[in-house]
């Protein structure tokens, strides 16, 4: 249990996917302009991350021990098709949910956070539950970073940011400051 809590906290805060591992930077820098969108994208990403964790556990357990060289390809193919399948299912079963989150799904599948999660979970040798908790933590961490960033950006739009630095340069520096603030979480619950 302690271990699971640490995995969650670590992925959420200490080793935040975006701010410490640089995963999911494209949406983080690109889509974080509006709070509403950021939050929904975060939720959708969390959802895909969970699916990824399940898929990669399955692959790691049953397929890859026999064919380790297929790791990358099989991750990509299996995750992408599972997500696509679920996307179709959601579209059919719950159009409202699809409208809220589903439109982001195709975008997310090519996001490096997804593949990153699969690879990290494999490298760390996580089992099923651990992988699931890892995915939830990573997703929550991604959502947290997205939402904070969006709030800051919406506010910064009203600031007198010099023209030269507006845009990506400024977003990177904001991310840097955020990342610096998140350094405060280092060592959280690891000394216990």
């Amino acid at each position, binding site marked *: 249990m302690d271990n699971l809590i640490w995995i969650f906290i670590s992925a959420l805060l200490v080793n935040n996917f975006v701010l410490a591992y640089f995963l999911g930077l494209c949406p983080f820098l690109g889509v974080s302009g509006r709070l509403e969108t950021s939050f929904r994208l975060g939720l959708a990403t969390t959802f895909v991350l969970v699916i990824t964790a399940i898929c990669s556990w399955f692959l790691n357990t049953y397929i890859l021990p026999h064919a380790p060289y297929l790791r990358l*390809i099989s991750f990509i193919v299996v995750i992408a098709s599972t997500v696509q399948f679920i996307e179709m299912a959601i579209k059919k079963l719950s159009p409202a949910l699809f409208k809220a989150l589903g439109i982001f799904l195709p975008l997310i599948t090519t996001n490096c956070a997804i593949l990153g999660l699969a690879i990290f979970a494999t490298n760390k040798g996580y089992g099923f539950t651990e992988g699931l908790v890892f995915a939830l933590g990573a997703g929550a961490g991604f959502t947290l970073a997205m939402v904070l960033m969006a709030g800051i950006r919406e506010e910064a739009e009203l600031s007198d940011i010099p023209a030269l630095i507006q845009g990506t340069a400024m977003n*990177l520096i904001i991310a840097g400051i955020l990342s610096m603030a998140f350094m405060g979480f280092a060592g959280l619950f690891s000394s216990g």
Partner: protein
Amino acid sequence: MAREQSSYESFIKGLWRENPVFVQVLGMCPMLAVTNTALNSLVMGLATLFVLMGSSFLVASLKHLIPKQVRISLYIIIIATFVTIADYTILALLPAVHKELGAFIPLIVANCMILGRQEAFASRHGVRMAVVDAAGMSAGFMFALLALGGVRELLGNGSLFGVDLFGPGFEPWVIMILPPGGFITLGLLLLLFNWIAARKRAFLAEVAATEREML
């Protein structure tokens, strides 16, 4: 596509005018994650170069055979194959570097720059142009990687490619090799790039104005 670009122009545009990192803001994830030393940057840059040139070559050669509906899937398969090859090669030849780059070599697959080049360029041009374009883009990417990795290693460790430059008394700026340093340095490099570009524009405008006056 006003006119066919020369190979040289096509190469140079990737290096500067359409630099994938500084101008198009692509490939941020490997850009930041592996640039804590210049060596890592170099290896990452070479791996990307290999993958991009290889897949651009293949895509441009096979473009008439690829059905439109499944082209993206095929691009990804091609890219993933080259990435796997790069991954194993680095693992075999440079195990120490591979340990540092770790998960970020497979993540080259998710570098939108590579897929983007297939879709936007390689699938629409001849093999030679595609390869030149890929080389230009990779060079631009490598240039950005090295700039960032160089600055970070220099300040963060006082060395460049592992060679100590400032002597033993140098106090390393630890944060530069940590994530915040990556973000902030890249932000400042972008700022620098914007500034140079703005200066250049201003200079060109001035030249144009002077020319007009002289006429």
